[in-house]
C-alpha cells in the first residue's frame, strides 16, 4: 500500500516531551521490576516453603498449568498423599497466591482463569479419591436473570467463588424467577448473585426479590451488571448493588463469618471489600 498520510506528522508528534503531551500509558509508566511470581514476598509467604510435592503442586496452579497439575495430583495420590491435605495445603495455596498477585495488579484475568481451571481439576481428582465432595465454606448461587443471555460477568463470579473455597452453584443464564426460587430452596445458599446487562432485564431483580420473600427466603441478593445502578437495585428489599466480580467472595465472607445482612452490606460495602468504592460513598 501507499505510505500512511500520518507519516508526515511523526516528527512533530514525537518531538519534545513526545506523545506524553497527548496521552500517557500510565500502566507502563508505573510498572515495577519483573519478578517471578513465586518470588513476590507476599506469595512466598503463602506458598508451602518446603521443597516437595505440595510446593510443586502449588506452583503448577500458580502458573495455571492444568495438565501438569493433573499429572502431579495423580502421582501424589498414587503415592499415598492425603487428598484433603493436597487440596488445602497445595492447590488452594497456589490459588491464594494467584489471588494475591491479581489484587496487586501483577496477575491478570487469564492467569486467574487458567489457575482456577487447574485448581478445580486437581480438586476433582482429589475428590474422586475421597469418594465425596470436599468441604467448602458455603454454597453461593449465581445466575443471569431471565431475558439476559450475557453471562461473562457471572462466569467471573463463579471463578472467584471457587478460587476462594466457596461452592458456586451456577444456574447459568436467562434463568426464570421460579427456577431461582426452587434452586434457592434446594441449595440454601448464603448469598446469591443476579446479573443483568440491560435496563429492561434489570427489572427482574424486583421480581426475584418479591418471589423469594413470598417463599420466605431472605438470602441476600447481590445485583450487578452492565446497565445496573445502585439506586435502582436498592428499590427492592433483600438486595444490594454489587460493583466488581472479585468483591463477591469478600461479601460472602462477611455473611458467613460476621453474620452481615443485606442491610449491613448496603451500609458497609466499602469496608467489607476493603477498598474505596465510589458508588458507596
Amino acid at each position, binding site marked *: *500500500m501507499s505510505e500512511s*498520510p500520518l507519516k508526515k506528522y511523526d516528527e512533530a508528534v514525537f518531538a519534545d516531551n513526545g506523545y506524553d503531551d497527548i496521552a500517557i500509558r500510565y500502566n*507502563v509508566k508505573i510498572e515495577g521490576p519483573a519478578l517471578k511470581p513465586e518470588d513476590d514476598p507476599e506469595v512466598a509467604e503463602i506458598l508451602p516453603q518446603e521443597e516437595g510435592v505440595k510446593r510443586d503442586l502449588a506452583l503448577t496452579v500458580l502458573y495455571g498449568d492444568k495438565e501438569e497439575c493433573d499429572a502431579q495430583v495423580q502421582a501424589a495420590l498414587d503415592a499415598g498423599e492425603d487428598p484433603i491435605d493436597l487440596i488445602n495445603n497445595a492447590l488452594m495455596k497456589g490459588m491464594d497466591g494467584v489471588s494475591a498477585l491479581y489484587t496487586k*495488579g501483577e496477575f491478570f484475568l*487469564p492467569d486467574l482463569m487458567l489457575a482456577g*481451571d487447574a485448581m478445580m481439576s486437581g480438586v476433582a481428582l482429589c475428590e474422586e479419591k475421597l469418594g465425596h465432595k470436599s468441604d467448602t465454606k458455603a454454597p453461593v448461587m449465581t445466575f443471569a436473570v431471565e431475558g439476559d*443471555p450475557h453471562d461473562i460477568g457471572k462466569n*467471573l463470579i463463579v471463578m472467584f467463588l471457587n478460587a476462594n473455597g466457596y461452592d458456586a452453584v451456577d444456574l447459568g443464564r436467562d434463568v426464570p424467577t421460579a427456577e431461582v426460587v426452587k434452586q434457592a430452596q434446594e441449595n440454601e445458599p448464603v448469598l446469591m448473585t443476579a446479573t443483568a446487562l440491560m435496563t*429492561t432485564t434489570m427489572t427482574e431483580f424486583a421480581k426475584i426479590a418479591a418471589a423469594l420473600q413470598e417463599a420466605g427466603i431472605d438470602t441476600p441478593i447481590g445485583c450487578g451488571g452492565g446497565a445496573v445502578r445502585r439506586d435502582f437495585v436498592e428499590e427492592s428489599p433483600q438486595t444490594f448493588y454489587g460493583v466488581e466480580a472479585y468483591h463477591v467472595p469478600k461479601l460472602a465472607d462477611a455473611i458467613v463469618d460476621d453474620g452481615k445482612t443485606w442491610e449491613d452490606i448496603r451500609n458497609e460495602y466499602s469496608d467489607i471489600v476493603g477498598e474505596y468504592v465510589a458508588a458507596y460513598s
Partner: protein
Amino acid sequence: MVLKRFTKMETKSVNDLVFGQAANPVEYGFDVKLGVGEVIPNIKVAPAEGSETSVEGMVATCKNIAFSACDRAAAIGLPTLQIEQEHVAQQTKSAEISAKTTAVQVEQLEELHDKYGTKASLMSTIADIREEDMGGLRGSDFDVKMDESFEACAENGASILCVETIGGKVVSDYGIARGDIRAILYGIGVLGSIDMGYMWPKIVDIASKYDYCVPGGDTDCAQANTAMFLGGGLTSKNVSHTLAAITRAIAGARSLVAIECGATGPTKDCGYENPIVKAIGGVPICAEGKNATCAHSDLMGNLAAAVVDCWSNESVYNREEMGGPTTGVWLQSLGYECALMNTATKMGEEETLRDMYTLADKYRDPQALVIAYDNAYRIGESIVADGEDIYLRSRAAALEACDIINEAVDAKKMYLTRFERDTLDSAQKTIEQLPEEQDKFVKTCIKRYGRKVKEHDPSQYEL
C-alpha cells in the same frame, strides 16, 4: 447462497478513507444521503426500566425519545437527525411492539421533516435473541421471531435494519477470559462469519422490499467488544490490550460478511472494526467514541471519529439532566461533533481533522493503534489477499495486527506492559503455528472446544 467475497479494496487508497466520504454512498429515510460528505448524528437511548412490561409502555418510551430528539435537533439547527432504536428482547419477540414502536418514531421524524425540512432517519437494530445451546441459531422460534421483527420494522418505516449477531460467542467468551487466541479466532473468524452468512441474506431480502429502507450492517459487539470492555482502562487488570487489539482485527474479517451478503451500510456504531470494513467494502459506517462515554469507556474516543459517517452515543438512560432530557443532551454533543467534521469538509480540511482525530489516540493503546485508519487499511489489504477463505483471512488480519503493534514498539512509539508484551508474543506464536487449511483448523477446534465449552454446538454452523 454463494457469497461474493471481497478480494480487492473498494476504497482505492488509504487517503480516501475519511469521515463523511465512502466509495459506495447510500440513501435512505427522509432524504438522508451518506458517504457524499456529510457526517450525521445517531442518537440512541435505552427504554426506561419498567417500560418493557407493556406494549403501551414501550410505545410511550419510544415516542418520548423521538420527541425529545426532534425537539433538540430543531432547537440547535441540526441539518440531519438519525435515531437508533436498539431493541430490547421484548421488542424483538413481539412483531406488534416492533411495528408500533417503529411507527411512533417514524411519525415524529416525518413531522420534523415536514415542518423544518430536516433530513431524518431511523435505524432499527433488532436484538439477537437466539441462543446456541437453547433452541439454536437456525430455524428456532427465536430465529423466526427475529425475521418477523425485521419485517415489522421495515414495513413501518425503519430506514436501516441492523443487528449484532452472536454466532461463536460461547467459544470466543471462553477464549477471551483465558487469553486463548485460537478460541477467539475460531469463535469470531470462523463461527461468527458462518452465522452472519446465514442471517444476512434474510435481512437484505426484507430491506429490499421498501425503497426507504436499507440493510445496514452488523458488529462484533458480542465478541470483540467483550474483549474491549473486559480489557477496560489502562489500570484494569483483566484482558490484555494487545490481545483485544488482535481480536479487533479478526472482527474486521468477520463483520465484512454483512456487506458480502448485500448490506450497504451504515454499519453499527459499536463495531470498532468498522474502519476495516469501510476500507474494504467502501460502505458508510457508524461509530462511537468520545461522545459515547455515557455507555462505556474506550481508549480511542477521537480516533473512532476519523472515518465515521454517522456518529453515535451508543446508549444512555432515558432520564432528565440539568440540561434537559438525556436524549437532547447527548444528541447535542453528537450533533456539534458532526458540525465540526462537516465544517472541516467545507473548508477542505477534512484530512487534517481526520489526522488530528487519529493521532490523538493512535499511541494511547494498542487497540487504538490497529484501527487507526492507515493500519485499518493495511489489515483490510491482508484480509482481501485471502478474501475467499474466512479462516485464512481472519488469521491474516490477526498476524497483520501483531506486525503493526510490533513495528510501533520497535519505532518507540508504542509502549507495552510486560503482560501486553507476553500475551502478544504468545498469541503471535500460536497463530503462526496454526494450520494452513480451514478444514484442519476447524476439526482441531471442534475437538478442543467441543469439550471445553459445553454450550458450543458445531451443527448450528453446519460444521
